[in-house]
Structure formats: C-alpha cells, structure tokens
C-alpha cells in the first residue's frame, strides 16, 4: 500500500516535518539500503545547490556532477526519469568521466531519482552503493517516496522564505558552491573575459587536473592559484 509506505517513511522522519534536510538524506539511504544519499537542486539541467548529503562520498558524487555537468542526477533531472546504474564497472556507461572519478572514490552503483511535483522539476536524489547491485522493488518504491517528500520539503522551505530570499535549507547548501561564483568573478577580472567564460575556464581546469571545481575555486580565492599561470 502506498499510503502505508508513506506513513512508514514519514515516521522515520518523525519530529522533523521534512524540514530537517540531513535527516531526509539519512532516511533515503536507510530505506534503500544504500551506502549514502544526497539531494541536489538543479535548474536548466545544471546543479545549483545541495540540500543534504550523508557522507563525503555522496558529497563527492554531487561535486563531480557540479564540476562536469554530467551524472545520474543531471540525467534524472533532465529526463524526468529514474536513472539506475547498478554496476559502474560495466562497460558502455553514459558518463565516462563521472564513472571514472566516482569509481575512484569506491562507488560501484549509482541511482538518480528526479525530484519533481507534477511538471515542476526541482532537482534529483542520488543514491550510491560501494558494491554493485540494483535496488529491489521495495527499495525502489521507497526511493520514489523519499523523492516526493524531498520535493515537498524544498517547496515548503521556499514557501517560508522571505520575498527574494532562498529557503533556509537551500541557503545552507548554496554556500558549498558560493566559492565557485566568487572565483569566476575574480577570474573574469584577471583574464578580462565575461563571467560565463571564466566559469568555463575554471571548470575546464578542474577537469584537466582531476580536481573538484570548488577546490580550485578556493585556491583562486585564497590567491594560491591563478588561471593562465599554470604550467
């Protein structure tokens, strides 16, 4: 019964009324028997902010997608469909670079669930496993419920935000990537290029050096690294 499933998962979130974002990700991992979970917001097919992650690996899964613009969340968001890659070691994966870097962190299976309400697309839930294996029907159904609850939590958070502001839970997740935009502003002045070009240069450098865009951005801001001076 779907209603019973909702109740069971809502009980796990009990006392948090869905507004406790970290708990949402923890429950997502728990009810799907996965190694970790994360919820990210996307707009126009690109990651914008992270609502929650359960551990360093799920944070990395989001960062890689933010850096590369590819991966299970990006695909789930764009297509509106569930993305399931139960064995990253298998050949013919749609995202070569994402898979290489995720596998390097011990990720063996990833799943992306679109977070949407009707036709309104908000983001995606990502789940990962440190061993290969598909989700069972029961786990899959649970993931759908968590994605639905996440959509409501994001909209509730925004409904309670002051005009023009970001809902408090999204605000926290935005801070993760604020450095990237600050660095893009600096690079734009350094190289005398528009900000969009600066952002492309920053991402390209992170990609080429196998680093996360937020790490490179931090180095730019702290004046430890300047684009155009690299060897």
């Amino acid at each position, binding site marked *: 019964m779907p209603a019973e499933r909702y109740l069971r998962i809502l009980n796990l979130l009990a006392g948090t009324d869905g507004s406790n974002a970290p708990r949402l990700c923890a429950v997502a991992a728990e009810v799907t028997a996965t190694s970790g979970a994360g919820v990210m*917001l996307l*707009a126009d097919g690109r990651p*914008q*902010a992270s609502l929650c992650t359960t551990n360093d690996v799920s944070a990395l899964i989001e960062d890689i997608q933010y850096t590369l613009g590819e991966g299970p969340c990006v695909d789930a968001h764009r297509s509106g469909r569930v993305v399931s890659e139960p064995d990253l070691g298998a050949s013919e994966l749609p995202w070569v670079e994402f898979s290489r870097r995720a596998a390097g962190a011990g990720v063996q299976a990833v799943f992306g669930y679109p977070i949407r*309400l*009707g*036709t*309104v*697309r*908000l983001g995606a839930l990502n789940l990962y496993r440190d061993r290969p294996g598909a989700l069972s029907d029961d786990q899959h159904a649970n993931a759908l419920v968590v994605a639905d609850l996440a*959509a409501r939590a*994001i*909209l509730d958070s*925004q*409904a309670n*935000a002051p*005009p*023009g*502001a*970001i*809902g408090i839970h*999204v605000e926290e997740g*935005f801070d993760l990537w*604020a450095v990237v*935009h*600050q*660095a*893009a*502003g*600096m*690079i*734009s*002045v*350094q190289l005398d290029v*528009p*900000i969009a070009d600066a952002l492309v240069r920053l991402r390209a450098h992170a990609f080429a050096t196998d680093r996360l865009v937020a790490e490179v951005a931090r180095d730019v*801001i702290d004046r430890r690294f300047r684009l155009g001076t690299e060897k």
Partner: protein
Amino acid sequence: MPNPVLLVQSLVELADNLVDDFDVVDLLSLLSERCVGALDVTAAGVMLAVPSGALEVIASSSEAMRTLEVFQVQSDEGPCLDAYRTGKQVVNLDLAATGTRWPRFSALAAAKGFHAAHSFPLRLRRRVIGALNLLRSDPGSLQEADIAAAQALADIATIAIIQHQISIDAQTLNTQLSAALNTRIVIEQAKGKIAQATDSDMEQAFRRLRSHARNHNLRLADLASRIADGAIGPSSLDRPTPE
C-alpha cells in the same frame, strides 16, 4: 438513465483536459454541458469555493441555471450550498416539497419550470472545493445510474482542479527559488570581481558592494547584476563607509 455513449465520451473529454495547461472555467463549462447531454437532467451548473470560503458561480449550462445559482449564493440557501457544506450528495429533492428547507430558492426554481434539484459535492477525501448542481424539469426521480455518473463526472473535475492548483503553487515557488538562487549567484560573482579589482577579500568586497548600493539607493541584486555583466566597473564603487 445516462446515455452510455455520451457519458463515456464526456469522461474521455474531461480526462483529455487534464493536461498541464488547462483552464478551470473551460473544464467546468464542459462538465456542465456534458451533464445535460449525458444525464437525465435539464440544466447543470458548478460553483467553486474561493479562498475566503465563499462560493462563486463558475459555469452554467443555461441562463436560467445561472440565475438560480447566483440566487443561491446571494440568499445563502439551496441544494448547492448544502452539498458544499455537508460534503454529501443532495439528490431527488422535489422542489414542490422543499418549501420549508429552501423557501426562496424552491419558489424561484419552480417558477422557472424545474421540478427537482440535485447537488453533488466536488470533493477529494475530506476536502470539498465546490458543488455540481443539476436540475430537472420533468417530475420523477433521478436513477441510481445517473447519480453515480454525475458523481463520477464531479470527481474527475475535482481531481483536475486540485492537481492544477498544486501545480501552479509549485511552479510559483520554484520560479521564486530559481530567481533567488540566481540573485545569490550574481552577488557572489560581483564580490569576486570587486575582490580582484580592489585586492580585497570577499568580506571587504561585500561591504563595498552593500555600501555602494545604499549610498546610491540601488537594490543590491541590481547593482551586483550590473557589475557581473560588466556595465559597472568593479573598481569604480564607493569605499565602504565604516559601520
């Protein structure tokens, strides 16, 4: 008895309207017209509750129906109001015998040639959003099959309207969220430009941005946007005033 062919056609037609971009008034006008065709009734109309809880006439299959619906709202009596308030069907009410329940409505409806009134709540679980009104000019009861069909048509319309409202609310919130995120991104970008151009850190850059916006009576987001897109040079801002 309902006309089975017309009833199925009406159900398909209503379902076909449940696309992303439908109009509630169009849907309810369609519902009223199809009730008259498919069911054994003379006139149909729909009322919806507005946020204050008051009912408003949304659709009517005829002018006589519209007059009677408006009258119900104004005089605060009638089958539609009862169905809305109780959430229960009001069926086979002989207007000749309801003079004490709805004295003014019954008299007016009888004067317009109607013999029986029926009303169905637009209800999804505990939530009642309005009512569907059906009137018959022939004496005699509405059959079970007509009653079931009328409620089915009302239920489809209800689900469509509630889904539509949820979708509009979600769309509005998502648009606000995206706009707010974009504003934040632009402010961070402007901070980065100012920090680089004035050899300062992000905190100092933000103070400069905010101070300039205040001095020149500009919105922070607008100023940041003009700096980010290059319309205002990042080194041309006022020095921050001490706090």
